[in-house]
């Protein structure tokens, strides 16, 4: 074990877990999810009579939540560094045999950071939706679901045990299902919703089994019991099993290989949903889980390395696919998968701060990009093909300029938020033994990211207005202020979010120290400055190449051949799953069904038929003539008497 780990272990998370002082913001944190949950319930029951007011109720609930979260944040900041981990028990939830789980909130720097992201970005997206969803026939239902989602996500973030986290984990899955299938009249949308739920459930089983193992090893499911000193309580094998199983869960929720297939399809949902759930918050839950359980991972860094490799490959593959997509939202969806891969590199190599940092900045710029895409679709009557767009810079300048900020941030242009977070992740990968290939892959993916995002921007906002030829009647215009205001705020956050942690020892690092345990290495494989230069160069090269190519050369959609064709079809992964999992599964189910009907039930029925057959033979004796029965009685009586006399029983 390297000295770094030992040094960090002294300041391990969950060593000092305090009960939240009564009346303090930390003891009221449970209200943060409860407020939107109540609002959701209210809107579901009575929303239809409220009309447009419904939306503002939902926004108000989010605002209250965001206010409370900020209040909690301020309270934590007022506490000394080492005394910032609070729990507050609301009630006992489950108690059966030796299992006991409470409804308990955990207020610590990590959960507070997540809480702030969820509530504030959530609030902005709620506001945005007021304009975006205007005129939808299920307007109030949409806001009810959004509120419910926010509540679930906050439960996930605030839960003080694996099980309460899991509650939020599943509930966000439900909301995701409801919102992807929001326009369920279209069968393909409904299918996408179901696919998301089922694929998530596959991951969830990993999470479930992880909890069984944890309970078997620790006899408890609370973070405080499990994470305060895991190394002393379990063997490396158990720890490895737990970590791998947790990663299966995380891979499902955070769309990593091999469970990422649901996320691109999830774009069937309304765009604010894609921004909130499938970019900024829910899909990052896996990263949060891994960051939260860092003390466990610190005991088995090799498993972390596996996670980092999976993340790196996901980042690369998704980036390649994104380069060939033509749907304005699908490009962003694959980009999200790719960026999530980066976060897993961060938490995998043991630099949770960098992972969470990228989670936050990605939350800003990806939400921004999705909302911008929504704004564009809003203007172009829900067109989604980027080849039918173009030239929108003049028509909708606010959307275009804020998008530009987002594109530059995600591309890693220096001094914007994405630059810092991505850089810190890659530096940690560089410093961790055995992770140099990850750095290389990450650098390559960074170049590709810059390329496809620039391509996205160029095709949508620059060049000739191709939509005008396709549908001359279209008169796009800038979106209403409820939609542009969130764009501006998020653009500001994307631009200056880097200030959270402008260097690996920055404010965010200090803030998160009580919550996470860093176990990344610290031996630079190559010089950091040189490495940073290479990554920046890759990004700029990608931007320059895409800007040149898509303004001058490639002004037509690429033919679907070769690598580009393969990437356009996402490397046939869906087809592969269909033939390797779905069809065999259906075949087995069908075989079982036939077995049930013909085999088991057939046996039962033939037993019945046999009995009936026997009956139809014997019933011939029953002639229905009373007198023949009497004769039979007589014969019987005579025989019995004869026997009795014959055997000498009766003299």
């Amino acid at each position: 074990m390297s000295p770094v780990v030992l040094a960090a272990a002294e300041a391990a998370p969950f060593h000092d877990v305090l009960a939240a002082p009564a009346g303090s913001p930390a003891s009221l944190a449970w209200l943060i999810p409860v407020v939107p949950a109540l609002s959701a319930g209210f809107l579901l029951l009575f929303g239809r009579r409220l009309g447009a007011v419904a939306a503002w109720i939902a926004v108000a609930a989010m605002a209250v939540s965001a206010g409370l979260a900020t209040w909690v944040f301020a309270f934590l900041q007022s506490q000394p560094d080492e005394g910032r981990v609070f729990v507050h028990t609301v009630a006992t939830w489950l108690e059966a045999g030796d299992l006991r789980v409470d409804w308990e909130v955990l207020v610590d720097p990590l959960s507070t950071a997540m809480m702030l992201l969820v509530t504030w970005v959530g609030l902005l997206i709620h506001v945005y939706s007021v304009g975006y969803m205007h005129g939808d026939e299920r307007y109030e239902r949409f806001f009810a679901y959004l509120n419910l989602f926010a509540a679930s996500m906050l439960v996930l973030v605030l839960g003080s045990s694996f099980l309460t986290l899991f509650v939020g984990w599943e509930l966000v899955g439900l909301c995701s299902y409801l919102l992807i299938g929001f326009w369920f009249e279209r069968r393909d949308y409904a299918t996408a919703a179901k696919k998301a739920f089922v694929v998530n459930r596959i991951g969830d089983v990993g999470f479930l089994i992880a909890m069984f193992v944890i309970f078997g090893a620790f006899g408890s499911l609370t973070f405080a019991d499990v994470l305060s000193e895991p190394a002393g309580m379990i063997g490396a094998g158990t720890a490895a099993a737990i970590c791998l199983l947790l990663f299966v869960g995380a891979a499902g929720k955070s769309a990593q290989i091999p469970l990422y297939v649901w996320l691109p399809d999830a774009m069937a949902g309304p765009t604010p949903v894609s921004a909130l759930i499938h970019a900024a918050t829910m899909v990052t839950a896996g990263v949060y889980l891994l960051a939260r359980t860092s003390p466990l991972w610190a005991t088995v860094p090799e498993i972390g390395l596996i996670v980092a490799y999976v993340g790196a490959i996901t980042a690369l593959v998704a980036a390649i696919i994104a380069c060939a997509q033509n749907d304005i939202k699908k490009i962003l969806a694959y980009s999200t998968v790719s960026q999530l891969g980066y976060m897993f590199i961060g938490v995998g190599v043991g630099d949770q701060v960098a992972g969470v940092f990228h989670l936050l900045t990605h939350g800003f710029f990806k939400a921004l990009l999705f909302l911008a895409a929504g704004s564009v679709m809003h203007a172009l009557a829900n067109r989604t093909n980027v080849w039918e767009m173009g030239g929108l810079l003049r028509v909708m300048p606010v959307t275009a300029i804020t998008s530009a900020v987002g594109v530059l941030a995600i591309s890693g242009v220096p001094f914007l938020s994405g630059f810092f977070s991505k850089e810190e992740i890659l530096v940690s990968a560089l410093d961790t033994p055995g992770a140099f290939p990850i750095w290389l892959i990450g650098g390559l993916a960074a170049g590709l990211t810059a390329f496809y995002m620039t391509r996205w921007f160029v095709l949508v906002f620059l060049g000739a207005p191709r939509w005008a030829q396709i549908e001359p009647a279209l008169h796009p215009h800038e979106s209403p202020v409820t939609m542009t205001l969130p764009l501006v705020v998020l653009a500001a956050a994307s631009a200056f979010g880097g200030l959270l942690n402008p260097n690996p020892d920055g404010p965010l690092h200090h803030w998160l120290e009580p919550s996470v345990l860093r176990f990344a290495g610290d031996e630079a494989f190559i010089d950091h400055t040189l490495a940073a230069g290479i990554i920046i160069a890759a990004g700029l090269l990608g931007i320059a190449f895409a800007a040149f190519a898509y303004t001058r050369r490639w002004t037509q959609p690429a033919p679907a051949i070769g690598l580009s064709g393969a990437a356009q079809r996402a490397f046939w992964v869906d087809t592969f799953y269909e033939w390797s999992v779905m069809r065999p599964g259906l075949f087995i189910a069908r075989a079982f069904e036939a077995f049930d009907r013909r085999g088991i039930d057939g046996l039962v029925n033939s037993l019945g038929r046999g009995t009936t057959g026997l009956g139809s033979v014997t019933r011939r004796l029953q002639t229905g003539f009373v007198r023949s029965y009497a004769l039979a009685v007589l014969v019987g009586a005579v025989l019995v008497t004869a026997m009795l006399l014959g055997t000498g029983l009766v003299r």
Partner: protein
Amino acid sequence: MVVPAGYYLLLAAGLFTIGLVGLMVRRSIIVMFMCVELMLNSVNLTLVAFSRIHGQLDGQVLSFFVMAVAAAEVTVGLALIVNLFRLKASTDADAIDRLRS
């Protein structure tokens, strides 16, 4: 004059046989019914006779039971016959074979 016990038994056996043969050969449900009564009463006679022979009361008690049961049987039986006659307009026992599908 005391009639020997054997005569009672012979009479009872005769009555029983008449009842049995009647039950076998007649088709009228009423006659069959009467034959059953005849058989029951022949048994009663046997019971009383044996009771007398052994000097015990058990047989006589039992014969009262038989009478009571026979009375009950007559009520139910006649009711059934009346109903059957209504249904079939016949007292032929062989005509009643509804359970035989």
